[in-house]
C-alpha cells in the first residue's frame, strides 16, 4: 500500500513538473509549481525528514509560489514560446540517460553515511536534543551563518535592482478580519515552532516562514505600509539584524572560547535559542521584504 502511494507520489511529482514546464499560461505554470512543492514536501515526510518537509512546504511551495505569482502578474504578456522540438527531444533524451547514470551510480555502492552515528554520539554536547537543530546551529553553524548571508544578499538585491514599480494593493475588507485571526495565530505558531526546535522538528527557518505568512497577510490587508519610512525602516533593520547578530555572536564566541561559533560550555542551549529567536524575526522580515519589493521610492 505504502509502496503504491510512493509510486503515485513520484509519478505525480514528475507529472506536475512536466505540466509546469509545458504550460503556456504563466499562472498555470506557477500553480503547477506550487502543487509540485507540496508534493515534494509530502515526499520529504515519506522520507522521514519532517524538518525539510516543513521548510519545503512553507518556503519552497508557499512563499516562492507567492513571489512567482507576483512576478508573473508584472511581466508583460509574451508571445507563445515556441520551443524547438529538437532541443526538447535532446534534453529529454539526455536527462533520461543522465538519470539512468545517476541511478546506476547510487545503486552500485551501498554506503553507510558517517554523519548520523557521529551526530548521535556528540548530540549530548550540543545543547539541544533535535539532531537537525544541533547540526544547523552548532555542528555546522558556519553553514547556517553563510545561508543567512545568502538571504541578506537577496534582500540587498531586491532593494537595489531598480525594477520594482508595482506595489501590492490592499486586497480589501474581507482580508482584514482574516488577518485579525491569522496574524496572532501565526505569531503563536511560530513561537511554538521556535521553542520546539530544540527537541523536535522545527526551528528558525520554519518559524520565520510562518511568521512571514502572517506578515504577508498584514501587507495584503493594507495594515502594514512599507512605504512609510518608519515601518519600512523597522522592517529593514529587523531583516538586517539576522546576519548582524549571528555574526556578532560568532565574534563573541571566538572571544569567549577561542573557537569561532564554539559556544561556552553548558550554555549552548541559551546561545542557540537566542540566535534562533533573532533569526526567526529576521527571516520573517526578509521574506516579507522580498515579497514586497523595493521599499524606497523610485525616482520619476
Amino acid at each position, binding site marked *: 500500500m505504502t509502496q503504491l502511494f510512493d509510486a503515485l507520489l513520484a509519478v505525480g511529482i514528475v507529472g506536475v513538473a512536466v505540466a509546469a514546464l509545458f504550460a503556456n499560461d504563466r499562472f498555470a505554470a506557477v500553480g503547477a509549481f506550487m502543487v509540485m512543492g507540496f508534493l515534494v514536501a509530502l515526499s520529504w515526510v515519506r522520507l522521514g525528514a519532517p524538518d525539510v518537509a516543513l521548510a519545503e512546504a512553507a518556503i519552497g511551495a508557499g512563499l516562492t509560489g507567492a513571489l512567482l505569482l507576483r512576478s508573473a502578474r508584472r511581466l508583460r504578456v509574451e508571445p507563445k514560446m515556441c*520551443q*524547438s522540438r529538437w*532541443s*526538447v527531444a*535532446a*534534453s529529454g533524451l*539526455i*536527462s533520461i*540517460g*543522465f538519470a539512468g*547514470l*545517476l541511478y*546506476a*551510480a547510487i545503486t552500485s555502492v551501498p554506503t553507510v553515511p558517517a554523519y548520523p552515528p557521529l551526530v548521535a554520539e556528540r548530540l549530548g554536547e550540543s545543547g539541544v536534543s533535535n539532531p537537525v537543530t544541533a547540526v544547523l546551529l552548532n555542528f555546522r553553524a558556519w553553514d547556517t551563518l553563510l545561508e543567512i548571508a545568502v538571504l541578506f544578499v537577496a534582500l540587498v538585491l531586491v532593494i537595489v535592482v531598480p525594477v520594482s514599480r508595482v506595489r501590492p494593493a490592499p486586497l480589501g475588507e474581507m482580508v482584514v478580519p482574516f488577518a485579525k485571526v491569522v496574524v496572532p495565530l501565526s505569531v503563536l505558531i511560530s513561537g511554538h515552532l521556535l521553542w520546539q526546535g530544540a527537541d523536535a522538528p522545527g526551528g528558525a527557518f520554519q518559524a520565520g516562514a510562518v511568521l512571514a505568512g502572517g506578515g504577508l497577510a498584514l501587507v495584503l490587508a493594507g495594515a502594514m505600509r512599507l512605504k512609510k519610512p518608519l515601518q519600512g525602516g523597522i522592517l529593514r533593520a529587523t531583516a538586517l539584524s539576522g546576519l548582524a547578530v549571528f555574526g556578532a555572536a560568532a565574534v563573541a564566541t571566538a572571544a569567549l572560547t577561542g573557537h569561532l561559533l564554539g559556544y561556552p560550555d553548558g550554555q549552548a542551549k541559551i546561545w542557540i535559542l537566542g540566535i534562533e529567536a533573532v533569526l526567526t524575526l529576521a527571516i520573517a522580515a526578509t521574506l516579507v521584504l522580498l515579497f514586497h519589493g523595493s521599499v524606497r521610492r523610485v525616482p520619476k
Partner: protein
Amino acid sequence: MISLPLWLIPAAPLALLILLSLKGARGAVRGLVPFAPVPALLAALADPLPLPITLDWLMLGTQFALTDLAATFLLFTSVLWGLAGWSAMRMLAADPQRDRFAALFLLAMAGNLGLLIAQDIVSFYAFFAMMSLASWGLVLHGGGAAQRRAGLVYVVFAVAGEVALFAGLAFAAHAAGGITLAELRGSDVPTVAAVLIAAGLLVKFGAVPLHLWLPLAHSAAPSPASAVLSGAMLKAGLFGLIVLLPPGLDPTPQAATLLAAMALAGLIVAPVLGLIQGDPKAVLAYSSIGQMSLMALGYAAGLAAPQAWPVIAPALVLLATHHAFSKAALFLGVPVVWTARPGMARAAIIAALLLPALALAGMPGTSGWFAKEALKSGLSAAPAGWAVWSGAALLVGSFGTALLMVRALTLLSATPHKSDIPVDTALPWGAMMAAVIVGLSVSGLQLPAQKPVHVGDILPILAAVLLAFAGSAAFRYGRIAFTPPRPGEILALFQREPAPTPLLALPAPPRSGRALARRPKRRIAARPEQGGLAILTLAAGLALVAFLADAPPPIELGNPSVDVAPK
C-alpha cells in the same frame, strides 16, 4: 676603484622612467635621458670589470655578470644610447608626445643594456622582450600611415620572434636542467631548441628572409631611434647568438650552410633593393642588412669550423663595434642635414658624413677596413671550400655598401629643408662623429700586425663611385624616369591603395554624436534552452566520462614537497 653594482645598469634608465611619471620632474628627466647609460659606460670601462651579482628574490633567481665580450658590446651600446637619447630629446623638444617617447626609449634602453649583463635565461629573455616591444612604440611614434604600417609589420615579426625565442629557451633550459646561461652553454642544446632560439634572434638580427620589418621600421622611426635600432639593437641579436649558441666543439655543417646561404643572400639582396629606395633612411637600413649579413657569414664560418672561432669572434666584435658607431653617426646625421638649407653648410655636413660612409665601405685605414681584414683572416681558417667564395663575398659586400653609401648621401643631399627641427641636434651628432674618429684612431691598434693595403681593397669603392657617376649620368642625360618602389618589398604586394589598413581592423560602426549608435546584437545564448541544454550535456558528459573511467591504481603519498623556488 669602487666596483659598480651591476644592477645599476638596467636600473638607471628604469629609475628615470619612474621619475618621468612625476609631473614636476619631467623637464629634469628629459635632460637626464642622455646620462641614463652612464653607469653602463662606467662598468664597461672599469678595470677590473665589476663583480658578478646574484639576486635571488628577483623572478626565478637573477644573475648579472659582465664578461669581456659583453663589456665591448656594452661600451658601444651605452655610448650609442646616450648620444641617441641626447639627439632624440633635442629633435623632439617641441613634440607634445615627447614624454611618451622618452619613456619607451628608456624602457628599450634598459632592455638592451640589461640583456648584455644577464646571466640567466629568464632575465635575458625579459630584457630582450622589453627591448623589442618598447621599440614598437618608438617605431609607431610619428603616428602617420607609414608608421602604422611599419609598426604592424614590426610587432608581428617581433612577437613571432619572441614566441620562438621563448619556446626555444624553455626547451633549452629544460634540457640544461637549470636557467643560468653557463648551464645552458655547458649542456647539449636540443636541435629544436637551437633552431627556435636562432630563429628568434635572427629576426632581431635582420637576417635575410626575416628582415622584412627592418627597412620599414628604420625609415618610419625618428632618426635617433633608427640609430639605436640599427646600431645597438641589431647587435643584440648577434650578441644573443654568440652567448646562447656559441659554436661548439663539433662543426655543424648544415646549420653553417644554411646561415651562410642567408648571409650571401643578404649581401646580394641588400644593395639591389637598397639602391632603388627613395628614402635615405631606408637605404641606410638596407646597408645595415648587408653589414649584418657579413657578421652572419662570420658566425656561419664559426659553426662550420669551430677551431677558427677564437679568431673569428674578436673580428665579429670589431665589425659590430665599427658598424654601430658608423651607422649611428650616419643616422644621427640625417636630422642635421634636414636642418641645413642646400648650400655650403649642407655640403659640409655631407662631407663630414663621408667619413663614416667610407668607413662602412671598408676604405683602407678606416675601422671598417681593419674589421674586414680581421674577418678575412678569420674566414681563412674556415673549411677549404669556403675560401673560394668568402673572399668574393667580402668584395661584393664592400662594393654593395659603397654603392648604398653613395646612394644614401646623394638622396640625403637632396632632401628638403625642415625648419621645425632644432639646430642643436648637431651637437650629439658632432659627439658621435668624434666618437667615430676616436674609434678610427684606436681601432688600428687592435690588430697586432698591420696588413699591407691591397689595390683590391680600394677597388670596390672606386668601382662603386664610378658606377654611381655613370648611373646618374645615364639617368640624367638618358632622361630615364625612376620612381622608387613602395617600401616593404614582398609585403608591399599585400598593401592596398591608398591607405594601408591594419590586418585586424574592422569596419567602423556608424556613429551618431559621441554615443554608440548601434549596439552589437545579442547573439549569445539567445535562447535560454540552448544554454540549459549545453549545461545539461556537459554535466552528463563529464559524469559519464568520470563514471566509466577505470579506477586508478592506489596512489602512494610520497614526499610531496617539490622544489621549484629559487635557492
